[in-house]
């Protein structure tokens, strides 16, 4: 049964007629062509499909469309236009934190989440903050370094708890 669902997607108001049990992941990828959201495991275990829903980092494979009514969703496609992204991007590049790239958009959003949550994240907090995102290539070390580097480069960019595009 189709239902009209309104929500905000990367700062734009959108509306879609969709079965409310359909996964947010599929709607983002298929209906909105946002293919930076990746499907890794379909079971909420790998973090390749994370997006922000009202500033919370969520696995979009676990979210039915009925749960996003009037919510604000940010994907990598929206986030890549921010100052925060620029700093994280430069840090990932410098630290060598990208290999195959499949987990990378998710890792970058998780990094944003860490930097917004902790003023000066410790290594343990970084590990905790990335623990929902699986990477099979890097051994994570370079990603830890990238998060620390972003903090160092970005300073007060993360003083607000809300992401604004």
């Amino acid at each position: 049964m189709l239902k009209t669902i309104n929500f905000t997607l990367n700062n734009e108001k959108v509306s879609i007629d969709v079965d409310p049990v359909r996964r947010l992941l599929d709607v983002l990828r298929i209906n909105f062509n946002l293919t930076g959201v990746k499907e890794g495991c379909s079971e909420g275990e790998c973090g390749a499909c994370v997006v922000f829903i009202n500033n919370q980092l969520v696995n979009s494979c676990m979210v039915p469309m009925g749960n996003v009514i009037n919510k604000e969703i940010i994907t990598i496609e929206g986030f890549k236009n921010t100052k925060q992204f620029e700093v994280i991007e430069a840090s990932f590049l410098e630290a060598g934190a990208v290999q195959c790239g499949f987990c990378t958009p998710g890792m970058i959003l998780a990094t944003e989440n860490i930097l917004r949550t902790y003023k000066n994240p410790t290594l343990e907090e970084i590990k905790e903050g990335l623990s929902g995102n699986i990477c099979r290539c890097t051994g994570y070390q370079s990603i830890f370094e990238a998060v620390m580097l972003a903090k160092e480069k970005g300073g007060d960019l993360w003083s607000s708890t809300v992401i604004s595009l």
Partner: protein
Amino acid sequence: MKIDERTLRVDAVKKMRGENEFLEDLQFENLHYARTLRSEISRGIIKNIVYPEMPKDYYIVDYRDIHTNEVAMIDFDMPIFAKDQVNYIGEPIAFIVGKSKDKIIELMAQVVVEYEALPAVYSIEESKANQVNILDKKDNNIFVKHHFSKGSISTLSDCRIFEGYYETTYQEQLYMEKQGVVGDYDGEELKVYGSIQCPYYVKNALIHSTKLPEDEIRVIQSDTGGAFGGKEEYPSLLACQVAAAALKIKKPVRLIFDRREDIMYTTKRHPSQTYIKSYVKDNKIQGMVVDISLDGGPYIGLSDVVLQRSLFTLTGAYLIENLDVTGVVMATNNVFTGAFRGFGAPQSMFALEQHINQIAKGLKIDPFKLKRNHFVKQGDQTATSGVYVEKIMLDQLADQLEKLSNYKEKLNNKKEDDQYYRGIGVSFVPHGGGFTGDGEATHIKAKVKLRKNADDTVDLLVANVEMGQGAKTALSKIVASVIGIDIEAVHYDNPDTKYVPDSGPTVASRTTMVVGQLLYLAALKVKERFDEESFVVEENFKAPDYLVWDQKNLKGNAYMAYSWSGVVAEVLVDKITYDVTVDKLYGVYDIGNPIDIKLVEGQIHGGMIQGMGLGMMENMTSKKGLIQQNNFEAYSVPTSKDIPQMAFDLVINKYDDGPYGAKGLGELSLVGVPPAIASAIEDAIGHKIFKIPVTPEYILEVKEYAKDN
């Protein structure tokens, strides 16, 4: 661009922005989806299949739609779709193809397959017992058997004997991007897109299965989200399947596995059993008898070559004068096993390192010291009676490892505490770069091309793929650096067999060392003629003179060059739960000369952690032919929380026939880690470890066994 400058990865920006196009991100007009009907039993005859009536625009695709129903790998024993017999749970029987995934699932649920079950074989032991014979035209279940020896074991006398049986289990590659291919046929040209390591393996398989003319088949690699060997030979099967579907319906057909299918039914690392018997006199290992068995599953695939890689370097970093080696691949009705980073070496190196560790404990010598006393030197004889031609710097490597890890101090002054048993372990392993034996010269015959364009850019034309390891950056850097242009002026697109020559598969730690060297030589030619407007140069592989190999008797130099590693692991074992924490990993590597230190670091850290998974976390088992761990929760790979402190160092030992002196690295970084961890756990708990992964359950078993005996 100079080779010593640090490079930023050329492929990273698109990946970070989510703009990379993995197979599932590619757009096609009128795309149809495929889903696989799979065998529910381990072995049996297909008596009958009842399909529901297919609605308009929905299709069944099976063996009848294929010209030659064989997947061309090395052998041809695996069908593309099972015809009248199935040989493992999950074996593909047919596709249902159509436009709606939901509809396909609905139709699939209505299919009824009637089987007549046949007796099956589920382990190496059962396969050897030979009560059930599962191979046609054979009176045993041995796919392949190799034997070689050197010196003479029988003349050894007055030796102390050490024996051990060592076991390893499945490991799943668990690349983040699942298996996926698209077939598209417009009546003139068959295009297959895929998340693949070896475009020409796929093309050759398609030529064999479709019998289309070679120039009507085109294989295009899509951005590949990790592979680790899992996309070496396996995608050839899937490509043949989607090709059959695309040729039948003349519309693009996409197959993407769901994660459970991918974990349960695709190739994995071979489970192994290794018996080693050593003859020791005067604290020297005088001779060794080794017997390795691998579980190959129901089709041979690449298993013969995997076994060879297990065997050829099975004396590791050590000189053993007298040797008797046997290896077999046994057929079973388990899931079929194949390529995985290390390719047979992790199995034999775990067994060897663990065995020598146990000898050292038996002789009351520090394992580091005993191993060091056996290091091979330049000019020594290899396990296959060849010669170590190149300069060997193992002593320096060991010195650097001692310094980096502070091994001796830590071994002798172990902290005692109430919560943990603490242990430290060391491994030294080689890994041969490029194909085994004369494979590069006789089998692969790599060819590369460079095209100089009028705008002073250069197109890099090879069939090797970027899959995360950094090939695009490393190879572009070599070319840019030789010619003396910016790395941005080198274009290296994903290979499309219509445009690139066959430079061989992206496997066997060969991309930098072998393909990179051909590009290095080609780039020298480009540099010389750089003033000319546009031209193409070509370079073909020539085997170096010292690569003397007799494939029939498995004698000679099994590899062109070896890379070497030394790894020290420190572990904590919880005294109550037996949970293992790897606290620190140190590695020192001789990979010739690094092309780019950041890429090298990425391969080392990544390999260390995948090796750590194999050593103590990634427990994959099969019960009656069914893989028991089928998702990320049941099959735990290392997460950010499991990461130890890691440190590494390099020994610079330039290899004359590698680009700027580089040798292989991709696999080496994994191979030495499991034995270092297992030895550290052995050191911590004071009991012998014979099996990886060393799980808490296994430690409990070992301790209980020790109590009872």
